[in-house]
């Protein structure tokens, strides 16, 4: 006989299925965009970290460089406090790397021996801003023929990450506000169509919470349903594009996305959906209660 608040909410939704569908679709779309931008942001952060931990400054030694000169430079860089990692690559190791990189091209392998490749010192800077300082330090050292560093790669990835984050937040905010407005409109229509019932409930001594709960629940349900659907769509999209992404990113260890990350994304989206849905319905309710 007595209906639970959830049952009353479900009844409201069933009576106007197109409104419920519109709210669910817009919420799903919003949260799908949230999923995509979250995954892209996480991926770009990971890419940035990958580049940050790669050797960023390489000093190539002249063929006549002595063991002592190599050691002096290694000590100089290590003691400067500017380097996160310092690694000496001998001529033989350089050849091994060269062979690995060109294993599919026997012609290139035949022409190269360890003798023609320079030994080098590879340095990862502790901070990206230190790259130029590290390069300068190594430039003047004895036995060094050439210093190569590419600050642009890291800077570009860093800029890209920031740009993505900003664009993602802007687009997401726009959709979140749209979703909230749509839920507000739908809940307002629902309240308007049940104005008499609400009035009766008030006169019978119903508390504000008793009256508000089914409407608030409705907004919250749209949020949760949207979150789960959006998350599912994001997973499908990720699985579908995995082969292409693996090809594109090569050795950057982005995939597969760990299960806990996907779990955290789902959790975050449910909370986000709940917040949008709840705020939308609560604004509609407070407008009605004030009137």
């Amino acid at each position, binding site marked *: *006989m*007595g*209906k639970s608040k959830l049952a009353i909410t479900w009844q409201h939704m069933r009576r106007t299925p197109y409104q419920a569908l519109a709210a669910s679709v817009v919420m799903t779309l919003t949260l799908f965009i949230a999923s995509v931008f979250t995954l892209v942001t996480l991926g770009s952060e990971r890419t940035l970290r990958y580049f940050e931990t790669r050797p960023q400054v390489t000093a190539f030694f002249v063929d006549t460089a002595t063991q002592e000169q190599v050691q002096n430079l290694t000590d100089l860089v290590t003691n400067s406090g500017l380097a996160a990692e310092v690694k000496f690559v001998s001529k033989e190791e350089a050849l091994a790397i060269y062979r690995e990189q060109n294993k599919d091209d026997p012609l290139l392998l035949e022409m190269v021996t360890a003798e023609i490749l320079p030994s080098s010192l590879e340095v990862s800077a502790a901070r990206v801003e230190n790259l130029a300082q590290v390069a300068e330090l190594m430039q003047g050292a004895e036995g060094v023929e050439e210093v190569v560093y590419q600050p642009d790669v890291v800077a570009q990835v860093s800029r890209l990450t920031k740009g993505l984050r900003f664009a993602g937040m802007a687009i997401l905010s726009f959709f979140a506000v749209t979703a909230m407005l749509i839920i507000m409109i739908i809940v307002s229509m629902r309240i308007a169509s049940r104005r008499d*019932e609400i*009035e*009766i*409930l*008030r*006169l*019978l*001594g*119903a*508390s*504000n919470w*008793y009256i508000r709960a089914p409407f608030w629940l409705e907004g919250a349900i749209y949020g949760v349903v949207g979150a789960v659907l959006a998350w599912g769509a994001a997973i499908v999209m990720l699985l579908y594009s995995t082969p292409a992404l693996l090809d594109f990113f090569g050795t950057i260890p982005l995939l597969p996305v760990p299960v806990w990350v996907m779990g955290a994304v789902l959790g975050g989206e449910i909370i986000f959906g709940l917040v949008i849905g709840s705020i939308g319905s609560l604004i509609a309710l407070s407008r009605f209660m004030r009137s």
Partner: protein
Amino acid sequence: MIVFDKVTKVFANGDKAIDEVSFAIEPKEFVFITGRSGAGKTTLLRLMMREFLPTTGKILVDKEDIVGLQAKKLPELRRKIGAVWQDFKLLWDRTVGENIGLTLEILGHEEKEIVKHVRQLLELVGMSNKEDLFPAQISGGELQRTVIARALASKPKILFADEPTGNLDEITAMQIMKLLKDINELGTTVLVATHNEALVEKLGKRKLTLEKGKLIVDEGTDGKK
């Protein structure tokens, strides 16, 4: 139980619905409020339920000043007063049983308890076999009984019936009055607003008569003072 002290209600359009009305009703009293249509009977109920505030004056219900009552305490006040409205205020998409159970639901009763209590109330108002019917499927007298049952569900200290016999034939009207009298005998303070003077005379209870918002007659007692 109920005190109106120089209560005046002037609506925004300037209509004076209640004009300096004062009276006191003791617990367990049965009181008729009579007067022509527009005399201010319904306004009295609405003031008591605090649907709106008086322009001036003081209203006490169960020793509590309801004019200064905080909004969060309104549900508590309304649970003390079982109201039977002229226009029934039933939910037409819910059955008779569900309508009566609504009050109990609001009070947070368990499902089993609601079912049991609703059946007792239906028996009290003589509608045991109508539980699953919708309001549109029952007669005017039965609608009135349903509203009375719903009003009684919260075991209110006060029952205010606004024109409970308005659209009923004489026999049904008498039955409803008898029911209200029985409820009063069980210990509830009963206020009945009506313009049916004949009915008032028959029952011989205390009568407050309103005319153009003024209390012009306060006569008789029901012997329970």
